[in-house]
């Protein structure tokens, strides 16, 4: 009972110090609670946002390319009438939605099935000439009740049924790009889109139906704007919404018009046939209410999908089937897991820092109470009572800290959600804070764990004091070596580590380097090896000294981390999506090892620091040398406190600099790669329709913008594609119908190689892979003397350019690597020598030969991005054929002459130069809007759209940056812990040294000298932490950048950021030390000398 009383009194007897402990525990608990609340809420919110964007849609069927349409019965019957091989609609895939509704096995699960048209169009605002290519347009049925809502800025629901023919709602995201500052409501947009007169033909039949491209040009009126908000389906507002009826009518009119205008002879030979009145290309499915779980939904989805595939026959593979709601649920689980892991790893390091602060406080407190403990022991308290009394005190503090931590965690979770919703751009009201009883229990658990673990060691130490020596004020010297028990315990751990390492599968001792091929395997090897490293250190600690032991252990830990970063990371070939834990191990080893190393050699380092500092101030006639000596010697004498303080900063700064350098390298580290891949191409100018060569657009562009007296001008400009074909790749390798894959074709001719644009700084690389050696090489026709590694490739390239054939087959050259698809690896769809069947206008289905593989080039990336940016990258990417063949190809779906691309190099050195944005706006104005603009001259519905090559990468960066910003903000929280720690250390240190300060003042220390000595000690301690943080953080940043980019990114050290953290550390240390220092210096020396501590 007396123990309890003593403990309870102690809680209130040292209010400042215990308040600091409580704050430390509160921070620690808040972190854990915050991580739980934040990650669960975040995961939930991603799901909520995604669910809201789905509306009630539970499954979707989309075509691989939007210009394919799921037809209604009319087409099928029409085709059937022409060719008896094609069955009428009620026997085949035609009228998909109609037939699905008749299908009992589908309707058993499905409550509603809605058809839509979702496509892309070019839109032009005639008043300004602003143009937006590939604008997504959704034709939504009037009776589509359950699948989503659009909200305007006043929160009013925008009904599709309210739209008259030709009226649209415009998404907020599209407003500024098209209209700038102009209010778009009531304005007209010219709207242009294309489609094919028939969907596709059966490649296995002799029937060849040549699809005809039909272009629709019309004017639409904007009646309202919908926002990125509200609980509707259309949460993301980057599209145009209109009625399905109107779109279907528009397509049908265009089709009939084309039929009417078709040349009579051509009409006889190859008539335009097409869709019925109700063409659609997307189906959205809502299951019945009884299908309420993921498992049931899986069953319903599989049944429905199979029914649709059966309905479509082999063509079923041309569509993407999404079990959307279940996918979202899976994503929620994955994102919660990943975010939790990430935040827990970083959070545990911050919590570790908080624990260091608490241990520091507890140790100082017990040291200050040593005499009191000695008296208690002298009057009869036993060791157990001392431990229990101290632990009870810790427990009280832990309880108070936990209660506050729950509140703090709640607020922290709220703050995290606000920050996340801001950085990821979604409405925070959509996110519900997940705050369960589990979280409260966990917080109390962690509060107790923190308080007890941090209190235990100091309590044991307090119970072990030498009563006589303590009462006489003597500090007994500590033993230099470890005892036998510690040695045996350590050896046991090492042996266990060895045994564990030998039982690993794969085994590093047997398989060597091969055991590290898979990231997850390397992860399991890490810990046992780290344990094995402890062995030698314990031997040294026993036979030589603890200092030696600690030094060896620290070197072991650091070496193992460095070996992993610089050697083993390079061996790892595959990962199953893990890796974060591995990085965490490495980080813990680096931080732990470096702290141990500095701590065990603090004497030497402090002595070196003192000498250096004294040397620096050697010529100053001031007390600074005395101040220096006091500060450095004080730091050495309070080794534990100094270690805990710099360890605190080392941990926090490692984390911050790690995230900072990783983020910085991701932001800027790819610049060289991008520049290399793009051949220093700065801009791409896209025309929404082909520009006739006779107009001489390139020349006119160069006349206007080439080498003028503008700040930014074009040095070179070249057309890249003249026509572009969007078609299907039919893979014959597995026989039968095989798999259809998306495949875009680009056409090239001699100009493509721009032999007239010889410039050493602007050589576009075409890395060809001969598939024999696997060695990429550079092929640049216009560079004299450039070695050609594979003559066959060169021949193939030349044949493709000239439109000639090899083995009687026209050639196709394919690109296989998504240059900007980091981490996604290779997407090989065809290898050299494969055959690809393409339908041609002059010869029907013809076999093309894959002559070569381009492993990278800038054009495909640009083309691909422009073409598919709304739908993601196609798996098969792009193929290039000669212009001659391109013009004769129709393939299964035909030729889309919708875009033409020019690439240009400016006089600017950096492709990320912001001045290019204004420059391109000038180009757009010149081409689209000014009086007598080129766009008006052609009389076509098109315009020119300027794109910085770098902006493709910037889009990728945007998401990354939001994530990094969040992480940076999250780890910056550690600085709060750091500053708290420093404040506590400084104030305690000053309180302990009151008498000493009085003595120094008596000896002639001025007030300023006293403050300087306190500040200097803390600044130097913080500086050690800073150096460790910079080294560890930079190395970790390097490791993550290398792993994440497969070594492609250049690792960049963020000097400015480091400078900022350095300044922050110094300022924190100065602020933390200066107040206690000043207050101490103000105590009259006579009072300070009377202080007995």
């Amino acid at each position, binding site marked *: 009972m007396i123990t309890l009383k003593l403990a309870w009194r102690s809680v209130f007897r040292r209010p400042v110090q215990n308040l600091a402990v409580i704050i430390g525990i509160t921070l620690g608990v808040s972190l854990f609670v915050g991580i739980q609340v934040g990650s669960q809420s975040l995961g939930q919110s991603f799901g909520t946002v995604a669910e809201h964007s789905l509306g009630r849609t539970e499954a979707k069927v989309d075509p691989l390319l939007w210009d394919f349409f799921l037809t209604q019965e009319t087409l099928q019957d029409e085709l059937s009438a022409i060719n008896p091989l094609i069955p009428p609609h009620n026997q085949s895939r035609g009228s998909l939605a109609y037939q699905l509704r008749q299908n009992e096995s589908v309707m058993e699960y499905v409550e509603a099935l809605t058809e839509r048209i979702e496509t892309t169009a070019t839109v032009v605002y005639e008043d300004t000439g602003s143009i937006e290519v590939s604008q997504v347009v959704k034709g939504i049925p009037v009776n589509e009740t359950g699948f989503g809502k659009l909200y305007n800025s006043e929160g009013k629901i925008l009904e599709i049924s309210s739209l008259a023919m030709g009226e649209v709602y415009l998404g907020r995201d599209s407003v500024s790009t098209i209209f700038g500052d102009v209010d778009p409501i009531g304005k007209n947009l010219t709207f242009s889109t294309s489609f094919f007169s028939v969907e596709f033909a059966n490649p296995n039949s002799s029937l060849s139906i040549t699809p005809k491209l039909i272009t629709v040009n019309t004017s639409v009126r904007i009646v309202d704007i919908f926002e990125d908000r509200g609980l509707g389906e259309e949460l993301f507002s980057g599209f145009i919404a209109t009625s399905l009826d109107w779109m279907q009518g528009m397509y049908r009119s265009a089709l009939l018009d084309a039929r009417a205008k078709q040349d009579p002879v051509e009409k006889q030979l190859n008539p335009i046939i097409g869709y019925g009145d109700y063409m659609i290309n997307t189906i959205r499915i809502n299951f019945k209410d009884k299908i309420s779980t993921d498992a049931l939904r899986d069953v319903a989805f599989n049944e429905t999908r199979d029914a649709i595939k059966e309905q479509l026959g082999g063509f079923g593979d041309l569509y993407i089937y999404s079990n959307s709601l279940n996918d979202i649920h899976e994503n929620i689980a994955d994102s919660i897991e990943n975010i939790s892991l990430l935040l827990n790893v970083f959070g545990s390091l911050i919590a570790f820092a908080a624990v260091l602060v608490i241990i520091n406080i507890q140790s100082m407190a017990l040291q200050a109470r040593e005499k009191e403990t000695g008296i208690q022991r002298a009057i009869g308290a036993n060791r157990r009572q001392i431990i229990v009394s101290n632990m009870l005190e810790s427990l009280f503090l832990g309880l108070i800290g936990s209660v506050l931590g729950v509140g703090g965690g709640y607020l922290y979770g709220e703050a995290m959600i606000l920050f996340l919703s801001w950085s990821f751009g979604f409405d925070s009201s959509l996110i519900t804070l997940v705050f369960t009883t589990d979280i409260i229990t966990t917080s109390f658990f962690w509060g107790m764990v923190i308080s007890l673990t941090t209190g235990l060691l100091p309590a044991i130490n307090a119970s072990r004091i030498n009563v006589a020596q303590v009462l006489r004020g*003597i*500090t007994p010297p500590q033993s230099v070596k470890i005892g036998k028990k510690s040695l045996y315990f350590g050896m046991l751990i090492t042996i266990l580590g060895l045994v564990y390492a030998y039982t690993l599968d794969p085994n590093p001792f047997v398989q060597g380097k091969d055991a590290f091929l898979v990231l997850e395997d390397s992860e399991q090897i890490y810990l046992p090896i780290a344990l094995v490293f402890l062995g030698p250190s314990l031997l040294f600690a026993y036979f030589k000294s603890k200092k030696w032991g600690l030094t060896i252990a620290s070197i072991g830990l650091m070496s193992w981390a460095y070996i992993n970063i610089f050697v083993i990371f390079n061996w790892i070939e595959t990962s199953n999506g893990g890796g974060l834990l591995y990085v965490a191990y490495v980080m813990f080893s680096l931080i732990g090892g470096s702290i141990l190393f500095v701590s065990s050699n603090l004497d030497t380092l402090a002595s070196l620091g003192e000498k250096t500092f*004294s040397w620096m101030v*050697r010529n*100053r*006639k*001031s*007390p600074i*040398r*005395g101040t220096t*000596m*006091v500060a450095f*010697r*004080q730091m*050495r*004498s*309070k080794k534990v406190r100094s270690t805990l303080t710099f360890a605190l900063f080392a941990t926090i700064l490692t984390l911050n600099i790690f995230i900072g350098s990783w983020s910085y390298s991701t932001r800027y580290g790819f610049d060289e790669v991008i520049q290399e891949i793009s051949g220093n191409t700065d801009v791409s100018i896209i025309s929404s329709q082909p520009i006739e060569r006779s107009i001489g657009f390139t020349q006119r562009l160069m006349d206007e913008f080439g080498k003028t007296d503008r700040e930014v001008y074009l040095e070179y400009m070249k057309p890249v594609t003249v026509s572009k074909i969007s078609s299907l790749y039919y893979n014959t390798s597995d026989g039968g119908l095989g798999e259809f894959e998306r495949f875009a074709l680009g056409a090239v001719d001699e100009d493509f190689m721009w032999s007239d644009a010889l410039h050493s700084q602007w050589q576009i690389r075409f890395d060809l892979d001969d598939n024999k050696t696997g060695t990429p090489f550079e092929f640049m026709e216009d560079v004299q003397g450039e070695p050609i590694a594979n003559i066959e490739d060169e021949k193939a390239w030349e044949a493709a350019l000239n439109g000639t054939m090899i083995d009687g087959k026209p050639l196709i050259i394919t690109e296989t690597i998504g240059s900007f698809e980091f981490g996604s690896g290779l997407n090989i769809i065809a290898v050299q020598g494969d055959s690809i069947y393409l339908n041609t206008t002059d010869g029907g289905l013809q076999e093309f030969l894959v002559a070569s593989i381009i492993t990278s080039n800038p054009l495909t990336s640009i083309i691909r991005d422009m073409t598919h940016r709304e739908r993601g990258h196609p798996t098969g990417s792009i193929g290039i054929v000669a212009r001659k063949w391109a013009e004769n190809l129709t393939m299964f779906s035909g030729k889309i002459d919708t875009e033409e691309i020019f690439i240009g190099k400016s006089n600017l050195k950096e492709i990320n130069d912001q001045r290019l944005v204004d420059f391109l706006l000038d180009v757009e104005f010149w081409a689209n809007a000014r009086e007598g603009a080129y766009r008006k001259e052609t009389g076509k519905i098109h315009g020119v759209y300027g794109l910085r090559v770098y902006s493709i990468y910037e889009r990728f960066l945007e998401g990354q940056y939001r994530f990094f910003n969040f992480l940076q903000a999250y780890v910056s929280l550690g600085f709060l812990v750091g500053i708290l720690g420093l404040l506590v250390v400084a104030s305690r240190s000053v309180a302990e040294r009151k*008498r*000493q300060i*009085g*003595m*120094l*003042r*008596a*000896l*002639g*220390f*001025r*007030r300023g*000298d006293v403050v300087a000595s306190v500040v200097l000690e803390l600044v130097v301690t913080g500086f050690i932490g800073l150096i460790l943080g910079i080294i560890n953080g930079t190395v970790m940043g390097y490791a993550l950048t290398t792993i994440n980019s497969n070594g492609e990114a250049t690792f960049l050290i963020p000097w400015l950021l480091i400078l900022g953290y350095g300044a922050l550390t110094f300022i924190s240390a100065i602020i933390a030390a200066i107040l206690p220092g000043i207050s101490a210096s103000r105590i*009259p*020396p*006579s*009072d300070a*000398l009377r202080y007995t501590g």
Partner: protein
Amino acid sequence: MEREEMLTLTNVHKIYNEGKSNEVVAVHDVNMVVYKGEMVALMGPSGSGKSTILNLIGGLTPATKGTIKIDGVDTNGLSNEEMTNLRRDRIGYIFQHFNLLDFLTAEQNVVLPLLIQGIPNYEAKRKADMLLRELGLGSRIEHYPNELSGGQEQRVAIARSLITTPAIILGDEPTGDLDQASAYEVMSMFRRINREQGQTLLLVTHSEEIGALCDRIIRIDEGTIVETGLEEN
């Protein structure tokens, strides 16, 4: 021949918490003088104001009223920094509890006042080593305070006070924590310094035996000087 005054206190008062309910008059109208080359004991019972007078002289606490002159310098008009400089350059302090810095070696403790004065390291070390050897601590130069005996610690403190060759050394019960043998050892050292170097010393003590070893005794009771030990008194 008229003796030169090293220290003069004229009508000095020290009142703690003046005007408050817990007001304490620690020193009342003190007038005293210490001449150059004198070794004077300031004696009185506990709480009589001995240490307060020492602190007033050393400028560790300001006088409420009166004038204190040290080596001709009137400390009244001095700023905090000027007083600190005066203390640093002209006064040596020795405390009852030695007040050595436990994280510095004997040599570093002695060197510190010189470093504060801005003397180069090598010169400060040379002087400190010489002084420590003179005081019989040649073998203890690199030892930390907790490795020294009480007598040795106080000798280090004496060395520290002497290193700046001060005008006057103020000792606050310098033998209070020492056994008799060590106390005599320290006092004989003071005497030697006084005789050989003409060093002025003012030692606070409550021990008659220690006081008897000085040139004269100034007695204080309840904050007032009751005996100056001078002939005219």
